[in-house]
């Protein structure tokens, strides 16, 4: 056993390691250069890894402190996580940059090394070494060096990190994993670089490789040599030398310029990252302009607040689309969850933030909302443009952040039970179904029933109420109460929503597929819970929503729907009409006029209006909805009418910035449009291009009408992400305008009635009327960048029901390295704003946390600036070695040329002049390349930082830095060439003399 091992080791030594060691020892000068470059490269790599390890640990510690409890934890942890995510992305970017630059430098060095030793390697190939073996032997050479240099680099990097961290007042840990990670990365880059070059070399015939024996240093071709005796020799010969060696010089110029570009970029970043403000506006308080401002004194009195500044006359009616996006619904296709008959669609409400556990960066880049109610997981995406990356799948572990408690807990996404397995009414009345069908908030008024929280099957008749405690208490209910399951209408529910298809009482019918055929809606209905029988569909002759005691003409529109179980009935009715369902016998079908109160009134039945309605009637408001899926219901398109003027003081239209189309309509269509209108996506598509429905996803989000340039009387639709809409001139769209409903009645009692909230309530409760418009022009606007709402005070008031013009107050907090103090300040501010809002709802006060304080803290902990400076210096320090080593190979090859020149009578002075010209040319060309590449590198670097979502941006690099870098590169080019020339010319002269 032992002898076997010994023999194997011996064999490996003699056949693999020994040739590599011999090669290293035989080319000491070359390999010393490689060793130095390796040391620097590995120093950079180890620094990046150690810094990341320490910063991640510090941020995690900060996060842990924050997560230890208290209100507002969720926001704080979100900001920290976002910063943490960016730090990780920055580390990945740095590693990528390291890998690319290392690859380039190694490529340059190995390329010259292979050229130099191609004869020896040719012998190996001649005598049977195949590609695999050559790769192994050559990689071993270098890996031997890497193994020697890495521990040294790691120790040096650790020392530098310790110094920087201790100078910044923090500790530094030497994570062992960084050593192994560095080793792995070094090996990967080296093996890749060598592997490719060996592959290229071995494809050449052996005779080509062997032919370089004795002439590997001889680069003067007979044809070129003829010219050396011509006139203007020094310049000519120098230019000729550079041209002949272009294969070596070009990559060298590029390589050195890239290093210079990286140096400039990192020094710039280092300078930028130093500019961390000690105080920044960490919070923004918004309040109605008309509101009393006495409370501002209380804000300044909050401990930790260092100052406030207001913007009194500013029109701050700007709303990010994100703030209104919580009611956007994610399509199953966007979540990665399989769609189809077996699954219910996911939808939900806001308040809960989702973090996929294994993709923290993704979560940091895009908000995703999730609600857990009644044991169901409901996913919802915000309108953030960065949420495309979120894909949840069944079984994936995610973190939920509850909006009320702020607690963070991992859960596993699970789908609802397949509809086919539903046997009890619970699923027909669950908040998900109801909300999807009605678009209304479940918590307000829906009662549901279930046996317990974990099981979805219950006994019919038992009920629990699922609603916020405040709602339940307002209804006079307390813990332990049970209520009878009923179908209940409230006053506002009798108002048909203009944009909602409502499938009818869940006890009675289940919505089938609804298709649009011209002006009619055809639908199927399936009896679920009641016994079979004949049902009549009644259409109101007028579309008004009045009391039910009016006479109804059901004449020709009356259809009879046979719903004998399990027969499926089908009927067709006009769009825009109201349908009513009656049980057979309730309505006299013989006449053309039916007076409902004559037969069925609440008084007759001795029942309350609610019970009466719930027991005997249900109605449909038929809307042109196609291919109804719950997911699409709440995707809204916002629009507004034309504006008459547009100034900073009077933003007439609602406007959004985003990749957009302007859709211009004719004035005739705008006659009766209100100030702000809304249209559902369903309607939109059904009127424009039904077949494109599938292309419209939740990520398309809002579309807004605007009128920047059009003539009075014309309106413009501005649609973000409009590439999927495929709109054309001549198409009609339906716009919705707000009705007169007071949306305050939908508000939760414990929510402050801010303008945003009221606006959201209007959106969510769909309080709009509809107008049909014809598009007269579609114009794409590539300049529009971000989805931002700007509402005029008038429009805001009309839409939100409260004054839109608000003031902002910036609140400044000292950015101390004390998370507990910051937490306390935030909590105090939150409590103060809540108190003011409760005492004075009309103030419309709200607190926005910018999260900057956490960003500042994480940046301070990160010590980015000194590390970037260190890395930039290291990158630049590779330059002389890169130049010297590569030039030594070039000039070694030119010894024979110098010998030739000596033999034909050229003196040392001539050679000196030629070499000087050559060195100057080389330096000039390197300067030109560097100057050209530095701006390019800046663009690339900023692009990469943008891709990873980092807040760091590289501004214009200062001229002194650029000039110094170019000079450094020129000096390296010049002196590397000059020193190597002196050595080679000296050798040539000695050989001649010998």
């Amino acid at each position, binding site marked *: 056993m032992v002898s076997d091992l010994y023999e194997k080791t011996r064999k490996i030594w003699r056949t693999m390691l020994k040739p590599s060691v011999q090669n290293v020892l035989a080319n000491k000068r070359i390999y010393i250069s490689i060793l130095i470059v390796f040391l620097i490269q590995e120093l950079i790599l180890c620094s990046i890894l150690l810094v990341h390890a320490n910063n991640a640990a510090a941020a995690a510690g900060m996060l842990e402190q924050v997560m230890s409890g208290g209100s507002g934890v969720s926001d704080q942890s979100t900001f920290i996580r976002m910063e943490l995510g960016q730090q990780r992305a920055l580390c990945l970017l740095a590693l990528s940059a390291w890998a690319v630059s290392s690859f380039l430098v190694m490529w340059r060095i190995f390329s010259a090394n292979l050229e130099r030793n191609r004869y020896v390697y040719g*012998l190996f190939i001649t005598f049977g*070494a195949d590609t695999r073996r050559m790769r192994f032997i050559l990689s071993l050479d270098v890996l031997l060096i890497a193994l020697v240099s890495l521990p040294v680099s790691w120790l040096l990097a650790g020392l530098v990190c310790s110094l920087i961290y201790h100078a910044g007042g923090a500790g530094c840990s030497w994570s062992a994993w960084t050593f192994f990670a560095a080793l792995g990365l070094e090996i990967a880059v080296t093996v890749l670089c060598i592997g490719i070059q060996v592959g290229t070399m071995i494809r050449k015939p052996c005779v080509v490789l*062997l032919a370089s024996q004795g002439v590997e240093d001889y680069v003067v071709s007979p044809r070129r040599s003829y010219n050396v005796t011509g006139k203007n020799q020094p310049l000519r010969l120098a230019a000729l030398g550079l041209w002949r060696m272009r294969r070596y010089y070009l990559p060298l110029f590029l390589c050195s310029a890239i290093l210079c570009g990286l140096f400039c970029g990192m020094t710039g970043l280092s300078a930028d990252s130093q500019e961390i403000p000690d105080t920044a506006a960490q919070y923004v308080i918004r309040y109605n302009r008309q509101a009393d401002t006495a409370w501002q004194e209380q804000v300044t009195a909050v401990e930790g607040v260092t100052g406030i500044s207001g913007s009194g006359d500013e029109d701050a009616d700007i709303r990010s689309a994100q703030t209104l996006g919580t009611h956007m619904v994610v399509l199953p296709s966007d979540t990665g969850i399989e769609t189809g008959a077996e699954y219910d669609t996911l939808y939900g409400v806001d308040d809960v933030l989702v973090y996929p556990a294994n993709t923290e960066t993704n979560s940091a880049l895009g908000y995703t909302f999730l609600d857990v109610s009644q044991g169901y997981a409901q996913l919802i995406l915000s309108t953030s443009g960065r949420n495309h990356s979120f894909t949840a799948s069944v079984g994936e572990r995610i973190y939920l952040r509850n909006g009320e408690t702020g607690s963070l807990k991992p859960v596993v996404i699970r789908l609802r039970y397949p509809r086919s397995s539903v046997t009890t009414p619970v699923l027909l009345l669950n908040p998900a179904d109801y909300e999807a069908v009605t678009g209304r908030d479940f918590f307000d008024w829906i009662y549901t029933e279930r046996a317990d929280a974990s099981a979805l099957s219950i006994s019919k008749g038992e009920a629990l109420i699922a609603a916020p405690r405040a709602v339940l208490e307002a209804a006079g209910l307390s813990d332990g109460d049970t209520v009878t399951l009923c179908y209940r209408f409230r006053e506002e529910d009798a108002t048909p929503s203009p944009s909602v298809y409502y499938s009818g009482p869940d006890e009675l019918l289940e919505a089938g597929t609804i298709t649009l055929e011209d002006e009619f809606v055809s639908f199927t209905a399936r009896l679920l819970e009641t016994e079979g029988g004949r049902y009549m569909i009644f259409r109101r002759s007028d579309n008004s929503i009045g009391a039910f005691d009016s006479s109804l003409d059901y004449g020709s529109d009356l259809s009879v729907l046979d719903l004998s179980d399990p027969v499926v009935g089908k009927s067709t009715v006009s769009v825009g009409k109201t349908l009513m369902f009656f049980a057979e016998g309730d309505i006299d079908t013989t006449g053309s006029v039916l007076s409902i109160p004559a037969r069925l009134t609440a008084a007759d039945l001795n029942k309350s209006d609610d019970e009466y309605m719930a027991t005997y009637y249900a109605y449909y408001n038929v809307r042109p909805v196609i291919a109804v899926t719950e997911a699409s219901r709440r995707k809204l398109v916002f629009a507004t009418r034309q504006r008459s003027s547009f100034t900073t003081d009077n933003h007439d239209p609602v406007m959004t910035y985003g990749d957009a189309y302007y859709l211009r309509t004719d004035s005739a269509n705008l006659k009766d449009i209100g100030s702000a209108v809304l249209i559902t996506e369903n309607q939109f598509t059904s009127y424009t291009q039904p077949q494109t429905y599938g292309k419209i996803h939740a990520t398309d989000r809002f579309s807004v009408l605007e009128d920047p340039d059009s003539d009075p009387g014309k309106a413009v639709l501005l649609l973000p992400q409009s590439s999927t809409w495929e709109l054309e001139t001549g198409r009609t769209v339906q716009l919705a305008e707000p009705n007169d409903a007071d949306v305050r009645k939908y508000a939760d009692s414990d929510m402050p009635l801010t303008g945003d909230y009221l606006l959201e309530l209007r959106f969510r409760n769909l309080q709009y009327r509809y107008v049909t418009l014809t598009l007269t022009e579609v114009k794409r606007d590539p300049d529009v960048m971000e989805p931002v709402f700007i509402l005029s005070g008038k429009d805001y008031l009309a839409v939100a029901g409260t004054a839109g013009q608000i003031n902002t107050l910036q609140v400044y907090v000292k950015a101390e390295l004390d998370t507990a103090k910051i937490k306390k300040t935030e909590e105090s501010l939150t409590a103060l704003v809540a108190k003011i809002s409760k005492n004075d709802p009309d103030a419309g006060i709200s607190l926005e946390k910018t999260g900057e304080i956490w960003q500042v803290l994480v940046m301070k902990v990160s010590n980015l600036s000194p590390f970037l400076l260190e890395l930039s210096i290291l990158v630049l320090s590779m330059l002389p070695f890169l130049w010297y080593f590569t030039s030594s190979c070039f000039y070694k090859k030119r010894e024979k040329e110098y010998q030739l020149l000596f033999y034909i009578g050229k003196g040392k002075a001539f050679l000196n002049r030629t070499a000087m010209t050559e060195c100057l040319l080389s330096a000039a060309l390197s300067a030109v390349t560097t100057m050209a590449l530095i701006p390019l590198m800046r663009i690339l670097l900023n692009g990469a930082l943008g891709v990873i979502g980092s807040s760091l941006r590289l501004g214009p690099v200062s001229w002194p830095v650029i000039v110094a870098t170019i000079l450094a590169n020129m000096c390296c080019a010049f002196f590397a060439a000059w020193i190597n020339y002196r050595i080679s010319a000296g050798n040539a002269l000695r050989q001649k003399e010998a």
Partner: protein
Amino acid sequence: MAILVAQDIIKQYKQYDRVITAVNQVSFEIEEGEYIAVMGPSGSGKSTLIQICAGLDKPNAGHVWLRGQDLTAMNQDELCRYRGKMVGFVFQEHRLVPYYTALENILLPLTAAGRDLEQYRERLRKLVDILGLSDRLNHLPSELSGGQQQKVSIARALIHYPQVLFADEPTGNLDKAASLDVLGMMLGLKKELKQTLVIVTHDPDVAGKADRVFLMDNGVLTPKYS
């Protein structure tokens, strides 16, 4: 039985704007154990021909079968392995690794192919004894005479039991006495190790001992009849 068959080999080089045909549609067969000499003036294509036959270069057209295997159809890796197993090559310029000792140079085919050196201990001893290199094994090539370097080159070509030994003017850089000495050793080894030997030479004395002699002129190969 033919161990080496060459058929319609053409090798051309492009030099500036001119195409030079180094080997022009050459075909021949060599029997196992034969000693073949190829003679001809400088630049006639002799070296190119045996480099192609040994798999060190690829022809523009034609085929070379070595023990039934078509070398021209192999990829580089297959060719490397086949060469390391079947072919020995002695270069005119010795072609030794300058920083390897004589011993390490001799063992190069074994280390290059990753073979177990222990299995070749006897072979090494025998070659070293025959070639008289025992006291020079730890010397670098620069410390050896031309003849000694050539002996190292021959030992290196034979260490891995090649079935065919190609030698490109192995005595070209040696004086008459050393030349005869080296040739004698090669023939002795050929006889003892039962190998096929193909030698390119200018030396009539070397060619005179061959079983068959070919003449090469302007890329065309013709048998020489005595």
